């Protein structure tokens, strides 16, 4: 069962709710702006981003933008438990900071841990305020699950780093003012030793962003090309060639960014109610599948609640984050399959023609966002085997040789 709030938690929750009531409106339904751009047009996207920025700014002014960060960095000096309580309250309101907030959560803690005082002073508050939007420049055509194989070259030229190469799957690069990039400064040493983590201005000549269209039809990620792009050495984080620890720190935070908020009638209970209304619930096969879908959804909620209790109690969670990641990704897809199956032949429709305005068809097409994005479920299973169960790693051929001597595909 859900753990009850302590008096301190209840007080904090009340304070958060009062602020939210004064600064936002409650969720109404499918027309809520926070559910995403109303269509795939550029104008709709711009409008959506303007609203997200405005909300980020408002949260910053209210002191709610980064609850766990120290006050000197623009945070609230609070606990992870308080951050979760705020997020729970915020979920009832028609607001989102979307990827703005997600990017802050990735690079911000890395700057606090590894950055120079000057870097923190220059970047943290503008990022929190939503004045500067960030993107993560990690994956490359030749460096996916094997991120340490990045080939984007960066060479020192005077006081600058000069960057040439290509990134891919870069979420929101088209909206970003700054990016944090993983690049190769030394190909003559083993792969993990030649990597540098730097902050780079995205609004400069030589940075070219080309949108990629997902199979679902949206354009949230991009290819990004760098041609003689410069960034000061002062914006290198943790020193030249010492970028890998920073990178893995960010990846750990990416794994922690679990916890999905669902909007609209997407619970299995809603599917049950619809099946009752349509008469299909009389069919034992329908009931069996609905019950199985509910069990999976409920078990996921119970797993999330276990994580929640640990955060509230200030304990290290006793369930590995990758368990939740894999379970969320795979059960989410099965739920979409169930919902589309319940639609019967009408499930072949899509968009406004389909039942439920096509949310389940969209969900079927968004599968990769969960099973590939944030680390493939296969990489997470490797992590479970090695980290949680202590199984040996695969033999590797890339650890001790200079990067330039390694074999690449293609």
């Amino acid at each position, binding site marked *: 069962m859900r753990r009850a709030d302590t008096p301190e938690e209840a007080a904090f929750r009340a304070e958060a709710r009062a602020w939210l009531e004064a600064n936002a409106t409650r969720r109404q339904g499918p027309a809520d702006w926070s559910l995403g751009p109303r269509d795939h047009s550029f104008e709709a996207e711009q409008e959506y981003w303007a609203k997200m920025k405005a909300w980020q700014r408002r949260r910053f002014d209210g002191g709610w933008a980064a609850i766990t960060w120290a006050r000197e960095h623009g945070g609230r000096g609070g606990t992870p438990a308080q951050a979760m309580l705020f997020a729970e309250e915020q979920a009832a309101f028609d607001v989102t900071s979307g990827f703005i907030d997600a990017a802050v959560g990735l690079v911000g803690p890395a700057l606090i841990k590894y950055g120079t005082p000057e870097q923190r002073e220059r970047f943290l508050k503008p990022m929190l305020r939503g004045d500067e939007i960030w993107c993560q420049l990690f994956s490359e055509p030749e460096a996916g699950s094997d991120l340490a194989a990045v080939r984007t070259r960066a060479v020192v030229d005077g006081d600058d780093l000069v960057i040439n190469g290509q990134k891919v799957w870069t979420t929101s690069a088209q909206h970003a003012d700054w990016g944090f990039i993983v690049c190769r400064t030394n190909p003559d040493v083993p792969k993990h030793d030649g990597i540098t983590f730097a902050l780079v201005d995205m609004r400069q000549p030589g940075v070219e962003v080309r949108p990629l269209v997902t199979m679902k039809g949206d354009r949230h990620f991009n290819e990004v090309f760098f041609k003689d792009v410069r960034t000061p050495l002062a914006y290198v984080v943790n020193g030249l060639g010492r970028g890998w620890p920073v990178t893995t720190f960010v990846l750990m935070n990416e794994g922690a960014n679990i916890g999905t908020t*669902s909007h*609209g009638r997407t619970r299995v209970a809603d599917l049950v*109610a619809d099946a009752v209304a349509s008469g299909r619930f009389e069919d034992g096969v329908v009931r*069996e599948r609905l*019950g199985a879908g509910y069990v999976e959804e409920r078990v996921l909620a119970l797993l999330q609640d276990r994580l929640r*209790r640990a955060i509230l109690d200030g304990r290290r969670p006793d369930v590995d984050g990758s368990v939740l990641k894999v379970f969320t990704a795979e059960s989410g897809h099965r739920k979409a399959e169930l919902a589309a199956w319940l639609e019967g032949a009408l499930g072949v429709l899509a968009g406004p023609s389909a039942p439920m305005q096509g949310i389940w068809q969209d969900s079927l097409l968004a599968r990769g966002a969960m099973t590939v994005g944030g680390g493939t479920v*296969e990489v997470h299973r490797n992590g479970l085997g090695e980290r949680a*169960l202590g199984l040996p790693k695969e033999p590797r051929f890339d650890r001790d040789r200079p990067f330039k001597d390694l074999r690449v595909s293609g």
Partner: protein
Amino acid sequence: MPLSLPDFDLAPEQVEFRDTLRRFFEANAPMAETRRVMESVAGLARPLWEKAGAELGLVGLAIPEAQGGQGFGLMELGIALGECGRALAPIPLFSAAALAGRVVARVLEASGGKAEDWLAPLAAGQIATLAWQEDGGPADPARTRLEARPDGAVYRLTGEKQIVLDAPVAERFFVVARTPGSAGGEGLGLFAVDPAAAGLAIEPAEAFDPTRPLATLRFANVAAQPVGEPGADGSAIGRGLEEATVLLCAEQIGGMQRVLEAAVDYANARHQFGRPIGSFQAIKHKCADMLIDFEASRTAARAAIEACEADDPERSLLASVAKAQCGPAFVRMAIENMQIQGGVGYTWEYDAHLYYRRAQSFALLHGSASEHHDRVARRVAAAEAGIGSKAKPGARAAGGAGAQR
């Protein structure tokens, strides 16, 4: 180093209790003992049962102190059963403490009756079990046909019960029966029967899981004592069975943990192609999936136990969620454990098959996953109908978090 999984949010005294029991079963119930008992006629490790009862008081864990029990809750009983299930210990702890113990307790609570007559002997170590299923149909006591006819101070039972757990070793049967002319959930009662009673035939049956002996009971006008008030509503029996189902899940969590450990230990130790087989993704991913099944199952079982203890309105729903989750998960895990162990996992000598037999039987006892899926769907539909009459659909859609409760 053998695999050690993190504790699941247990209080320090619960961890200590579990560790004590694990050491106890490792010392007193090694697998050789389970096999010896399983292949013997007796089907019971009497000294082990007496130790578990006398030294540790496991049977009476959830029985009130006034009846000679320890007065703990279902959580502690669940921990004890988990360790018993981990060891496949050849003692009828589930039958006595969970199956008989919970149903008797709930019936006494609902309809009066003297706890000292029925619970106190259990706490003192009497081997009791519950006879309730009559066929392979849905696991629902409302389907009971066996009749209890009043005859002076006693009742006379006539009919048949199948797959009665630990019946060959039982010292007392509690039998679910109905009053003549009643039907469905009405008219059900619980009756105590002496195994030596005239007219009772106990026919041991071969069990797919030989670590848990089974028998068919045939009743021909057998004298029986009523427990509580016969003919009262069967909901108390249903409530006790529901708790037993949740405790049955808790017992298998121990077995699941054991097969996960066994698979990982083997994957680390066994070398082929010059490397541990656990370094191959084909094996590593099986182990990862076992871990996901294990975490999902122990989380579901734990939630169901907590809901039963707190008398949460969702306890029946969560009991079905737990059974539907744990049953297929243990089967998958037991199969992967055998598969990872290759040829030896297929032998009589290695223990992998014993857990597979346990898992497969567990999946079918107390309602298959399909049965519980159906129950879950019906409960959710009823809950939604309740919400629908009170709130507008829009409000329901917006209140997603509340509906997760």
